[in-house]
């Protein structure tokens, strides 16, 4: 058990190291990315620029700069942004984390709920009109880019029909902390939740349907029927339980990636300043310290979610328990 944990930690460190080096190199390979002139201000004299370079260590060799930045990030924890000078990046990341968590968790509840419902219906009414309609809708859900859906949602709820009874309850774009107002938090998030969920509902419904259909071919389903169980019982207690295993794996990975900042398009269009938004801003402004902080945060989550999924696998699939 302990050796497994240590192995995972080493794995995580290797991943983080690789990613941070890659980000670092890409940044400095981008022409014009050197922040000294931008930090110094427009039309700064060469001396001013030189002084800024010395202050930020930008005249040191790359490996040294990398080492210094990693030290500031992890050890002394005072790594500051290149763009918003003086702003510590790590506290900003942690301030943004609950926003992303709120967005992603709510969306996850919605998408799992709907995906299971649609997948079950489609598998139960396989090859009928219901099935085909549901699968076409799912495909549409997958095909619509999330930033387009989000913009359309805004167009309707904030723009065209904002003053109608349908959408007058929709608050201005942005996040309302739960502590400030639980109802406000909910109202501000409900449309972003559905927007983010649409893609995943489509995907998961299709995956679940396929998994269910495959599972229904298994021998134990025939045994279950031979026991006198109704089709609904067979579907829900025997087929779904087995088919969900694949879904859970998928979910763990998707959730981890989203919490780490993968929902950035949704966050940007809805003005929710979570991790994805921070990442987006950092990339836009080429703010290397913030890029490193958000990318490493995301990597940590992805690696962690991989580990959690592996553990979860053992919990839900009894067959996997010995193989650990």
């Amino acid at each position, binding site marked *: 058990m302990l050796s497994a944990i240590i192995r995972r930690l080493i794995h995580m460190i290797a991943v983080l190291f690789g990613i941070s080096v890659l980000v670092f190199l890409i940044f400095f390979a981008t022409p014009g990315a050197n922040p000294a002139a931008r930090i110094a201000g427009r039309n700064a004299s060469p001396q001013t620029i030189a002084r800024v370079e010395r202050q930020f260590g930008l005249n040191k060799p790359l490996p040294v700069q990398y080492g210094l930045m990693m030290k500031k990030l992890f050890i002394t924890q005072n790594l500051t942004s290149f763009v918003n000078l003086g702003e510590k990046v790590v506290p900003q990341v942690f301030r943004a984390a609950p926003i992303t968590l709120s967005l992603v968790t709510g969306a996850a509840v919605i998408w799992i709920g709907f995906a299971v419902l649609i997948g079950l219906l489609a598998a139960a009414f396989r090859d009928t009109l219901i099935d085909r309609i549901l699968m076409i809708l799912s495909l549409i859900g997958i095909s619509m880019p999330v930033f387009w859906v989000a913009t359309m949602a805004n167009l309707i709820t904030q723009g065209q029909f904002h003053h109608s009874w349908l959408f007058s309850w929709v608050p201005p774009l942005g996040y309302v902390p739960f502590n400030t107002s639980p109802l406000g938090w909910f109202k501000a998030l409900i449309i972003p939740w559905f927007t983010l969920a649409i893609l995943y509902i489509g995907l998961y419904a299709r995956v679940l349907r396929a998994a269910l259909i495959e599972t229904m071919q298994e*021998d134990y389903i025939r*045994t279950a029927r031979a026991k006198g169980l109704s089709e609904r019982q067979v579907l829900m207690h025997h087929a779904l339980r*087995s088919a969900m295993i694949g879904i859970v794996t998928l979910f763990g990975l998707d959730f981890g990636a989203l919490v780490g900042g993968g929902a950035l398009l949704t966050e940007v269009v809805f003005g929710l300043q979570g991790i994805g938004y921070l990442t987006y801003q950092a990339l836009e402004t080429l703010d290397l310290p913030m890029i490193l902080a958000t990318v490493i945060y995301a990597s940590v989550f992805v690696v962690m979610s991989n580990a959690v999924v592996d553990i979860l696998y053992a919990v839900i699939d009894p067959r996997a328990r010995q193989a650990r």
Partner: protein
Amino acid sequence: MSDSQALLSVRDLSVSFRTRGGLIRAVDGVSFDVLPQQIFGIVGESGSGKSLTILSILNLIGDPNVIIAGSIRFAGQELVGAPAPVMRSIRGNKIAMIFQDPMTALTPVHTIGAQIIEQIRQHRQLSAAAAHQRMLDLLDAVGIPDPRQTFRRYPHELSGGQRQRAVIAMALSCDPALLLADEPTTALDVTVQAQILDLIRDLRIKFGSSIILITHNLGVVAEVADQVAVMYSGRIVEQANTADLFANPSHPYSWGLLGSMPVLDGPRKRLAAIPGLPPALDHRPPGCAFAPRCHFVRAACETTPPPLRAAPHPVACIIDEHERTSLRMEPLEQ
């Protein structure tokens, strides 16, 4: 034997499949009776239609293109065409079924205890505690060691033999009058096979159920069956009580089957295989289905399918009884 005594009465059962090429008959006009507390064996090679026959009793053929015709009467109730709720109340309750492969027969994500309890509570109004106790009793009755620990196990944690016992326990949980067993020992190794067969034999005594036992292994039939039906290409070609069948086989196919059985005593002979293969289901010959492979075929065999002749026991062959005996003694071709 009269209908009123039979527990299960199958008449002219045919199972056909709609395909692009037309209608394929996999089971063609099968008729037999099973008496209470009787072990009825059905033997035949793969593709003879034996599994489909018993699957159609419980309407468990999962193919939307299947057509089942004929009559299956169980305790006076017609099963062919019976509505789904009726079938559900019979399945696992009055008629139970166990399948060939214990590895895949149980749902891998539920404990065996939970799966047995599920069946019990489906058909009986028992409290959770009572159902739990019954489940433990069943596990004990089928010879599973330490039921109080084993019921928590998942199917993959048990050996093949234990799994099959658990499957049997589950099937018997509601005291079915009829148990359908589709090759219950085929997937097990030989020593375990013997134990399961013993168990099956005991079940008739302990639980009072009739059993239809499907196998391609004549040795199994010899061990446990009271009555045997031999199926070939979807039809029953011979039916007798076990002693009669082995003493006095009357159909050339049965002769072939018996000839291909290794004998423990006597000189070691080369096993005789019946040359050729059964006909493809969509290309059944107009006459006797076995005619292409029959050593003793004559012209009349190829025109019409021979009906089941009564004496000494039902056999579908036009060879006269007296001829049969002499033909039987001829050495078969190697």
